[in-house]
């Protein structure tokens, strides 16, 4: 076998091992912080239930029979809650790639290891996707104990395709947000919360974006979360076929094609800046 091919195989093997290093480390951290996982599960479940009970209470609120389908509104809010839970988990975990290292004091150790930055980010992303899926599934099962979920008309595969397409662009935005703790050691992690809250506001998680002011609707068009929610609702509530879902999947893929390379590029610039200015230093 030529030497170049052998070197390529060795390089791929090393990249796979390093990716696994991040996945295994994050898994160990999740296990060790299991108490927090329990707290977050109850927080996510109770806040989700609080939102969905608004649909159930609509009639009592208005004092008369409501002129809309309560079951539809319940499903609308459940889908919003679960999709947001999944996407925000991806966003938060990806954007915390640096914040975790700062909290633990390991940033210099990890960043001086012979790991290509994209491998580092793939490892973190792989874990965030898996974590997001499993934690959302558990919350979904718990919610099903409270409400009757009617999925008889749902196109589950189509919904999965939309969510997968949206995951990529959220990862790109998460990487972009992760540079904030690189640039601002003390406040960067809190700044990512502002980004997350903005997506929650403009993307139609609990309401259609048509109720927003016009300028917000214009911004919502640029949010991948908007397309994921619209596409998932179309697939699960209306049973839209895959051919109808492309109108959501294509913008998501296009956004992913922009946000992923942009995220990697911006991360490299930010890392170089941090190394020039001494901001990698562990404390502030």
């Amino acid at each position, binding site marked *: 076998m030529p*030497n*170049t091919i052998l*070197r*390529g195989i060795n*390089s791929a093997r*090393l990249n796979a*091992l*390093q990716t*696994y*290093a991040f996945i*295994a*480390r994050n898994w*160990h*951290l999740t296990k*060790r*912080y299991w108490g927090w996982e329990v707290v977050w599960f109850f927080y996510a479940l109770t806040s989700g239930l609080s939102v969905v009970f608004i649909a159930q209470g609509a009639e009592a609120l208005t004092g008369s029979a409501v002129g809309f389908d309560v079951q539809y509104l319940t499903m609308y809010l459940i889908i919003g809650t679960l999709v947001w839970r999944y996407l925000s988990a991806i966003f938060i975990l990806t954007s915390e790639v640096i914040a975790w290292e700062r909290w*633990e*004091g*390991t940033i*210099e*150790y*990890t*960043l*001086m*290891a*012979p*790991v*290509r930055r994209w491998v580092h980010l793939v490892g973190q992303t792989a874990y965030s996707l898996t974590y997001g899926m499993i934690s959302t599934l558990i919350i979904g099962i718990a919610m099903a104990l409270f409400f009757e979920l009617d999925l008889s008309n749902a196109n589950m595969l189509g919904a999965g395709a939309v969510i997968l397409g949206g995951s990529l662009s959220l990862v790109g935005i998460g990487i972009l947000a992760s540079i904030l703790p690189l640039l601002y050691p003390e406040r960067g992690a809190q700044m990512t919360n502002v980004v997350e809250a903005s997506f929650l506001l403009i993307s139609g998680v609990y309401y259609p974006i048509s109720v927003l002011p016009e300028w917000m609707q214009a911004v919502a068009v640029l949010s991948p979360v908007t397309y994921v929610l619209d596409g998932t609702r179309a697939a699960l509530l209306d049973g839209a076929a895959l051919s109808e879902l492309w109108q959501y999947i294509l913008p998501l893929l296009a956004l992913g094609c922009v946000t992923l390379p942009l995220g990697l590029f911006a991360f490299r610039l930010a890392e*170089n800046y941090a*190394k*020039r200015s*001494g901001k*990698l*230093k*562990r404390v502030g």
Partner: protein
Amino acid sequence: MPKPPPLDRQNALLVTEICKFFHLPQPPLWKRLLGAKMALPQKGALPTVAPGDKAPVAAVDHVSFRIGRGEIFGVLGPNGSGKSTLIRLISTLLKADKGSARIFGIDIEDDEMRVKQLISRVSVDAAFFKKLSPMENLLYGARLYGVTGPVARVKAYEIMGRLGLKRSSYNEPMEEMSRGMQQKVAIARAFLTSPVLLLLDEPTTGLDPRSKREVRAFIEELRDSHDATILITTHDMEEADALCDRVAVIHNGALVATDSPEALKRSIADNGSRPTLEDVFMRLTGEQLLADDSA
């Protein structure tokens, strides 16, 4: 994928006129966008700034030295003298404003990834995931350097055993260990990846005398058995005297002397006195302080 150039087997580390300044006055943003660079001062000549602005700092000021393969080279200096900054520059964690560092012939700017494969660093604060156990931390570190889990596990047991870590602590969270024990795990982690250049930034600070002695023995063994070169910063003059083939004294970011401990001691001996390395340190950094005061 082109074949990488061969390593320079004799010069483990060659540092040439390396500088790192902080808070230097910058050109306006628009000029920087057009390619204007920050004006770098000459050695020992920092610019004055307007009152209220942060004073410029020469953390590392035109430092040059060479470490031969297999050497243990000590860098001594008071707090804030630039020892840790120098190690960060060599570790690729900081970018130099000027000058260069070559590790086994590879420029750290030109081929950062290859340099990273050759080095490991133990810092004064043991940098660990505190909730994870020593074994989980070691496996994480080993995999980053391409050592597979099963191989790392065997080596980790061996190294931790020899550093005197109790077997019962291997799987307990690091946060439950003493500072000294944590530092031993940090050293074990560095050894696990078999670096050819080991950068030790005050590795024995906070360790009890027995642990210090164990770590020293391990450092010497690493040099003798594993063909490693070691750059160590320390405040412990006895340790530097016992361990180092040569030492450099750094003060205010600049090297003020470089030689073997014996030669440095001879250089200040007068009237038959037998000065220690601590006397050398006090003389070199003290004189510098007096010169600073009178300037």
